[in-house]
């Protein structure tokens, strides 16, 4: 048990967290409903009626959630959204170094990773894939909904892009979820997306540059929560 006790650093506000989980929920539902047309065994399991319902859910979620998520990010927490975007689009040598060393870290080998800001290079890549991937999926998705207005040759490419995007994002999501839930080196990060705070130790070790910046302003003391979490982990 950590002796540092309940000193925690605030990482994500409520709006950021709701936006994240909305995105997560939407992606999972869209992937589960959409990939039934890619994995035929799974499609057969749903049956025709199940696929029709899946299609309906896919369209409802696909149309509504991007709007909800954008609204939250832009209206409820524009400041952090701006910072997030600035961060994911600014790259330097230490990011590259981080990425080069990360595979070792991923497979549990000992490495000294360069100091990172609020978002490490891996998270930046994940963010970029999510931003551009979601845009691609929304645009191509709408074109498929309105496919009568486009020529079949355009739709042929749109459909390939939609399927490719889904599969690529699916692969990324698997790794992303594992890093947050199962990887010993980074699973503390999940707390940042649940309670909004991460342990001081995690913040210092994984996001040193950011920690130095916010260690005084974002410091919170929430005893039980940390305790609870540790118990759950144990």
């Amino acid at each position, binding site marked *: 048990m950590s002796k540092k006790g309940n000193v925690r650093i605030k990482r994500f506000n409520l709006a950021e967290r709701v936006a994240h989980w909305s995105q997560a929920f939407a992606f999972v539902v869209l992937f589960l409903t959409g990939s039934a047309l890619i994995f035929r065994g799974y499609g057969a399991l749903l049956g025709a009626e199940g696929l029709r319902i899946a299609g309906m859910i896919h369209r409802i979620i696909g149309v509504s959630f991007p709007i909800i998520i954008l609204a939250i990010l832009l209206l409820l927490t524009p400041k952090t959204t701006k910072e997030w975007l600035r961060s994911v689009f600014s790259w330097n040598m230490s990011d590259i170094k981080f990425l080069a060393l990360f595979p070792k870290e*991923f497979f*549990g080998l000992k490495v000294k990773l360069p100091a990172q800001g609020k978002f490490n290079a891996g998270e930046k890549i994940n963010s970029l894939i999510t931003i551009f991937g979601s845009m691609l999926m929304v645009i191509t998705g709408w074109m498929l909904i309105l496919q009568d207005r486009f020529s079949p040759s355009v739709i042929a490419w749109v459909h390939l892009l939609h399927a*490719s995007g889904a599969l690529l994002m699916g*692969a990324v999501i698997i790794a992303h979820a594992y890093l947050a839930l199962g990887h*010993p080196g980074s699973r503390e990060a999940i707390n940042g997306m649940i309670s909004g705070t991460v342990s001081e130790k995690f913040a210092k070790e994984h996001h040193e540059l950011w920690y130095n910046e916010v260690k005084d302003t974002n410091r919170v003391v929430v005893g039980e929560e940390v305790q609870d979490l540790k118990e759950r982990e144990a």
Partner: protein
Amino acid sequence: MSKYAMLIDVNECIGCYACRVACQTTNDLPSDISRIKFMEKEKGTFPETEIVVLPTQCMHCDEPACVDVCPTGASFKNEDGLVLIDYDKCIGCKYCITACPYDARTFNTSTGKVDKCNFCAPRVQRGMQPACVEACVNDARFFGEVDDSNSPISKLIAEADTAKVGGTSFYYKLPEGWDESLPEDAIKPAYVKNLTERVHPAGKALLGLSAGAVAASYVMTRVNGGHEDEE
């Protein structure tokens, strides 16, 4: 290979659309959905102008692209060579509309399913001609069994000015000088190959790769143990 074939004598098609409306009523289609499309071409300079009207519909391909991309098996080719849709299985995903090289499929908004020519299979079953053939006011359409070399359609197919749309069950007779307007052979569109042979396998591989890496990491992080975060 198909047992049945259709032949359109373009020399006789006056572009009147009687086949279209007869098809719609016979097959209970909404008035704005047609299984038959018409392409009109003209060439020459006034007053030496020539025209042809080329009706197209499902060509009942030997190796239908629509069947390849259909995720539920709703589109299928039966043992008589007809490409049919099992409406119980069609979920209206429209992949087949994109895949069809002849733009022969339409989405029926009233049923939420895809629609196309089925050579009037219910009529053929009773020994009747498809509705479009029956309705053609200028006898430009012919339908029949090609197995039988003595059938009227086999005789027409054997005539020198008859051209087959390669890889399909469709034949046309074109006026002199209009050979180039014959619909192209049923080559599978790149879309079909890209989807079924590239995107789907590559994507699935990527997913597998990701899952494999995760599994490997899970094992290795625990074998290596003593990671600094573990206490």
